[in-house]
């Protein structure tokens, strides 16, 4: 069977409905492909909105992940309706309210990558790129990294990833994933105001993370998702009113430990994981960054330049 790949936007709604409700639609995002099956209209709407620029495959093409979003068959199909996420026919999570189906798709795809993509060292961090250099932005929920990422990738930076920075085991480069950006609570209104032309899914309330909306990745970021980048900065962002917007150097040793804590599969890779993180720390400027406005953050990031020659630390 001939593999046909085209952008999702080339399909009409009837074709998408038929494919998604039948054998599935394989969507290619960065290095991964996910065959998605669902009959839930809000999810179909979300896929049409958020994944229009992504290549999709027809036929029985290979897919890394086989996922489905389904409504249960029992009373919960009608009474306080729910949705479940399935991976290879198994539901790894508890059901969620049907209204959260689209965010559940994104969380489920993140789970697939986080639990299976061990060809990378996976860091819970945003990652953005400019001039071939990647800035990795780790941080706990609520630190403001998605808000910052959303703004910067619409102002000169390329989106590599919003949630999962993928470090190549071979050379430490960052591979782009470039899926929709998950915005929460106040950041939804902030980004909607600052980026009025950006496409965003409807707000989904009362999730475990509060209100969630998904921002479509910039067209160029999706088009260039085959381009890797070399890490040049590890920056821990934090929104804080009254901040001066300066980058403050932080301990590289502390940064390695913190990144290790934020890596999903650091222990899986053992010695190689340590060597890869050491290489990352060697090659990056490591900073704490507090900002109190997106304009301030933009100004700081706009003057970022890669450091000079890297001095590799000794090893026993």
């Amino acid at each position: 069977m001939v593999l046909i790949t085209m952008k999702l936007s080339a399909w009409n709604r009837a074709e998408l409905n038929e494919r998604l409700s039948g054998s599935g639609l394989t969507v290619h995002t960065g290095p991964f492909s996910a065959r998605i099956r669902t009959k839930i209209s809000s999810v179909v709407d979300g896929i049409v909105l958020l994944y229009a620029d992504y290549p999709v495959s027809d036929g029985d093409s290979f897919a890394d992940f086989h996922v489905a979003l389904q409504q249960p068959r029992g009373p919960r199909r009608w009474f306080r309706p729910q949705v479940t996420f399935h991976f290879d026919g198994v539901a790894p999570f508890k059901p969620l309210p049907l209204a959260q189906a689209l965010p559940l798709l994104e969380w489920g795809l993140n789970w697939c990558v986080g639990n299976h993509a061990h060809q990378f060292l996976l860091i819970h961090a945003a990652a953005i790129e400019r001039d071939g250099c990647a800035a990795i932005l780790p941080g706990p929920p609520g630190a403001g990294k998605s808000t910052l990422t959303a703004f910067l990738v619409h102002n000169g930076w390329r989106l590599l990833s919003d949630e999962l920075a993928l470090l190549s085991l071979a050379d430490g480069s960052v591979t782009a994933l470039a899926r929709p950006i998950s915005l929460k609570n106040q950041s939804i209104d902030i980004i909607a105001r600052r980026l009025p032309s950006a496409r965003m899914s409807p707000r989904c309330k009362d999730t475990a993370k509060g209100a969630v909306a998904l921002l479509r990745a910039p067209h160029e970021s999706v088009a260039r998702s085959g381009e890797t980048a070399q890490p040049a900065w590890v920056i821990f962002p934090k929104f804080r009113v009254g901040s001066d917007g300066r980058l403050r150097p932080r301990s590289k040793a502390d940064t390695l430990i913190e990144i290790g804590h934020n890596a999903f599969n650091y222990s899986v890779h053992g010695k190689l994981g340590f060597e890869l993180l050491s290489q990352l720390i060697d090659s990056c400027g490591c900073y704490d960054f507090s900002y109190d406005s997106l304009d301030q953050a933009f100004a700081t990031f706009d003057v970022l330049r890669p450091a000079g020659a890297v001095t590799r630390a000794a090893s026993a």
Partner: protein
Amino acid sequence: MNSASTDTSQQHTWRINRHHAALWRSWDGEVVVYDDISGDTMKLDIIMSEIFRFMLHCPATPAEIVRHLASAFDLKADEQLRHITSLALHRLREAALIQTIPLAGSQDAR
């Protein structure tokens, strides 16, 4: 750590335990060690880092380590520094990063 064990440690020469401390990195005087046997990744504090890096060159007695720390940090080699050194050696030993060199005719290194 009680005084008795402190007295005991003064009789030993310490060395890096290469089985547990084969992989490490140092930035700005701070050492991070990866223990490939336990899978632990440990960041050493500034004193432990200096002791670790000193002992990479050769084994050392506590007295030699105290003298080195006094020189490195411009401190007095007094009782307080000896106590700090003793604590650091204890923690490094607990992490299996260092071990004693047996004296001639005595027990194996521990």
